[in-house]
């Protein structure tokens, strides 16, 4: 039993990171009805930028701020140059375009920083916390990650519920046409949505990098986990993305703990498939454009 609890606790840190990445996916989905499969590519790219800044300045915080700025800019650029111009009818095109961006970003990162895995400095110590005579599978760093995730979630919730920008974003997500008629500057709102998603993704990237290594492809698996979490959470809901992200992290930690970490992708796949089977989106569901 104690082992189970240990596995669970060990998953909180990675769960928080999955939650952040899922949150980024949800933000772009809400903004433009596009699942941004390039999100992890953007996060990888900004994390490399952060690593360069870190190497130059030696400051973890400066690097984080650099990543956040780069993330916002990258998100805005991609929405402005790529997803914005894609015809709204061409849903396949939008999906394919995000994969194109992913491939290009990974190649660009490989060109600039090389294909090898690089270590990202661990700023807060990785030793387990000992409390009440038990060594918990939680490190100070895990707590920092959870803290960042909590701050971002609270901040985003405040933006969405308390500001006029948030109102505009919710209105645009609900119905762009109506929002436009109500005086919302829709395209600007969409772009801000992508910028916010870029920021969240960038933070997730900088937070996850020290726990393993960083290379152009190293976040791919995170994309699968985050997508799983976002879909289970409903793809539309910030709360859903966060809670299901943490749930996914815990589950994968338990699976990895009791068997082997190489089972995590398969476990995520099974989780995703089960969810889609039991709660499928039928083509004639109420999202169908015409018949009802």
């Amino acid at each position, binding site marked *: 039993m104690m082992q189970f609890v240990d596995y669970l606790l060990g998953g909180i840190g990675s769960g928080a990171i999955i939650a952040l990445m899922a949150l980024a996916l949800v933000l772009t989905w809400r903004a433009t009805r596009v699942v941004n499969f390039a999100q992890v590519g953007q996060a990888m790219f900004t994390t490399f930028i952060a690593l360069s800044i870190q190497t130059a300045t030696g400051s973890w915080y400066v690097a984080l701020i650099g990543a956040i700025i780069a993330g916002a800019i990258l998100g805005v650029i991609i929405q402005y140059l790529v997803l914005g111009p894609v015809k709204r009818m061409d849903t396949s095109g939008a999906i394919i375009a995000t994969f194109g961006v992913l491939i290009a970003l990974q190649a660009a990162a490989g060109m600039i920083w090389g294909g090898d895995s690089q270590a990202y400095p661990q700023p807060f110590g990785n030793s387990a916390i000992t409390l009440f005579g038990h060594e918990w599978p939680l490190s100070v760093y895990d707590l920092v990650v959870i803290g960042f995730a909590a701050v971002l979630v609270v901040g985003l919730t405040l933006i969405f519920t308390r500001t006029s920008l948030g109102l505009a974003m919710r209105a645009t997500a609900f119905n762009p046409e109506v929002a436009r008629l109500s005086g919302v500057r829709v395209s600007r709102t969409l772009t801000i949505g992508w910028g916010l998603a870029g920021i969240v993704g960038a933070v997730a990237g900088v937070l996850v990098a020290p726990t393993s290594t960083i290379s152009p492809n190293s976040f791919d698996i995170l994309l699968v986990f985050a997508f799983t979490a976002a879909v289970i959470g409903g793809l539309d809901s910030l709360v859903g993305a966060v809670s299901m992200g943490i749930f996914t992290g815990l589950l994968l930690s338990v699976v990895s703990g009791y068997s082997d970490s190489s089972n995590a992708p398969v476990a995520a796949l099974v989780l995703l498939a089960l969810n889609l089977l039991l709660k499928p989106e039928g083509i004639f569901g109420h999202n169908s454009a015409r*018949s*009802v």
Partner: protein
Amino acid sequence: MTGPAAESLLSLHDIRVRLSGLQILDGVSISVPQGTVTGLIGPNGAGKTTVFNVISGFVKPESGDVRYDGRIRKHIRAHRLTKMGISRTLQGVGLFASLSALENVMLGGSSRVRSGLVSQSLAMPWTDIETERLRTRALEVMTELGIAEEAERLPGELPYPVQKKVALARALVCDPTLLLLDEPAGGVGAPDMEELERLIRSWVPKRTVLLVEHHMELVMSVCDLIWVLDAGKVIASGTPDEVRNNPAVLAAYLGEEGAA
């Protein structure tokens, strides 16, 4: 020709539909007598298209029965409709944008295709015979509607009224017993409207037609029987004259879209 009497080809009994918290249909019972043109009218949001969606199996009612051809149909599946002899057009045109007009019409006869994936993938000669038969039939219907010359064009290249006719041809090609027409006159000008009226009348009594339509002139002149829906309930039924003079109908229409 009054009321849901004797020879009903299709009848709905006490249909209730709730979608995302709204009661769209609240105990709707209507019937469509064999060999007639029956109209279904009502103000916007009355639930007309939902009635069609229930009949076509796109929407599952909470309760109530759909009876067609003497049998209660429990699990209607949209793609089985044509097998049952029911064809439906969609609001707008609903054509396949990347297929030619002829190919669109040919696909309306899909329920008659027997050959499966294996014989298709080997291009067995009988698949060609089947296709050829469908092509002939499709051209026949298109000639009837006067659109045979447009057979090779893409829907996007055709004027809107012609597109509507292509959609109509696609519904007719499987030789349906019951035709469900969803706003066949929408976006169509006066001359085409007259032709449409003539066409619809020419199908009965061989086919039975159920019509959802906003153009009152067309409805009044073409229908034998009219059902009036408002807010998910049947508020009136009868011949065009009876409906026209029904105060409840007037109230519903005036209340909903006063100026119109």
